[in-house]
């Protein structure tokens, strides 16, 4: 089955690159095997595939995307993609009324999945936006970053993907896109949650103008 996983991976990488005609720009850092959290704006189903495909294959092996369990475990096909191809970690999205215990459990499972080796891809808006405005960040990423020593948070701005495959559309439009990796951030000692999230969000917004 390993071969099938590999083939599916190559097929997806090729397909995503072709459809989105994407150029990857490492503007603020270089690909590296150190433990990182890549966080990006989310506006299309292509985001997760393309961001994953933009990372060079030697580094990609140690990168796990966070996939929302309620969406990605729904059908067999999605489960296969999420677990076998992307090697992702399921994250339980916390909806209103689920209480703090559910949130804690969800973060716990991500931190465990990352261990001391794996990097994470996460879309801190939690859900796909309209592509124009960057939504507020959920606090999950703050709690994850706090739990992992010396982790770098790398902002990744994905441009134009919402136009290539907007919400609710089936066929992608063959436009061009850019994936820009920014300079890594680190959490400072005792930094407050809202301040940190705002700093992360601003770093991502700044990439829009590069």
């Amino acid at each position: 089955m390993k071969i099938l996983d590999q083939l599916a991976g190559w097929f997806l990488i090729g397909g995503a690159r072709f459809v989105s005609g994407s150029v990857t720009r490492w503007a603020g850092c270089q690909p590296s095997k150190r433990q990182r959290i890549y966080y990006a704006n989310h506006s299309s189903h292509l985001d997760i595939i393309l961001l994953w495909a933009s990372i060079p294959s030697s580094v990609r092996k140690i990168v796990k995307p966070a996939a929302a369990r309620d969406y990605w475990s729904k059908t067999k096909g999605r489960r296969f993609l999420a677990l076998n191809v992307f090697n992702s970690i399921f994250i339980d999205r916390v909806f209103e009324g689920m209480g703090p215990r559910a949130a804690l459990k969800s973060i716990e499972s991500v931190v465990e999945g990352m261990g001391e080796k794996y990097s994470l891809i996460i879309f801190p808006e939690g859900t796909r936006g309209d592509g124009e405005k960057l939504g507020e960040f959920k606090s999950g990423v703050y709690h994850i970053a706090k739990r992992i020593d010396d982790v770098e948070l790398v902002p990744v701005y994905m441009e134009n993907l919402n136009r290539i495959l907007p919400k609710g559309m089936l066929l992608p439009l063959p436009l061009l896109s850019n994936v820009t990796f920014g300079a890594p951030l680190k959490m400072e000692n005792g930094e407050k949650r809202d301040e940190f999230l705002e700093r992360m969000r601003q770093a991502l917004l700044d990439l829009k103008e590069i």
Partner: protein
Amino acid sequence: MKESLILGAAVLSFLLICSGLAVLFNKKSGSETSRKMAEIWSTRTRMWWGMAAIFVVALLTKSVGSIIVFSLISFMLLRELITVTPTRNEDHKVLLSAFFMILPIHYLLLISNWYGLFVILIPVYAFFVVPTMIAATGSLDRFFERAAKIQWALMLCVYCVSHAPALLLLRMDGAPFPNAPLLMFLIIVVQAKETVASLVNTLPNMHPTLKTENVQWTMTWEGVLTGTAAACAIGLALSPLTEFSLPQALAMSITISFMCGASNMCLAGLKSDWGRHGTVLIECHGAMIDRIMPLCFAAPVFFHLSRFYCLTATPVGFH
């Protein structure tokens, strides 16, 4: 057969000389101006190799191969232009049909020699289909703007570009290479004008054709004049390959140069619309539009002039 070999050898040696010069320029360039000029020269040289390849394909496959190559150029150009043009997500399906319906149908008409429909598909039928589809989305905000953007993009990237390979279907019976001389004439003259003009434009102390603060405006009077002169010289030299008389070749070269100038002015306009960010975005992807736009403008005009005024250039099998 003998002529083809001579022509092939001539083209190949010309390209080799150009590449050699490119290497030499890149080594020697010291000042800012000469560095820029060396860069222009090597980009152009790379492009000429590509064009020579297109001609080889055209001669070998009886035009179908070239038509397919140009349809891919159209596709990539349309992709670039729509990328930097703000469109709305409601128009997703309209844009999909521009890429995957109108563009392929247009080129299929060319392959099947259906001239009558080929020249009106986009200006007439797409002109009605696109706005109707936009209206059918149910969102009527900025209707005119949306329809105009898509129609303009189709005209420029599909309709205009396709007139270059359409030249392959005009047959000049008296010319040594019956189906390729006009396309060759057009492309070489456009290249002569653009190369000389862009080299001269980078020289210091030139006189811009328009007093404007906009940095996109690079045209200078000296560039226009030397470029046109180069185009005329090359056009006259190429006239034996075609059936143009000398005055006809001269008139065609001047017309082509004029259209190149027009395209440069419009490209400056487009770039100022896109802003710095948009321009950088497509430059990351190679900015094909910079190189193809002059051809887009010159091709339809040259096509129709050849068809109307050079009586021997009769369409083959057009119905």
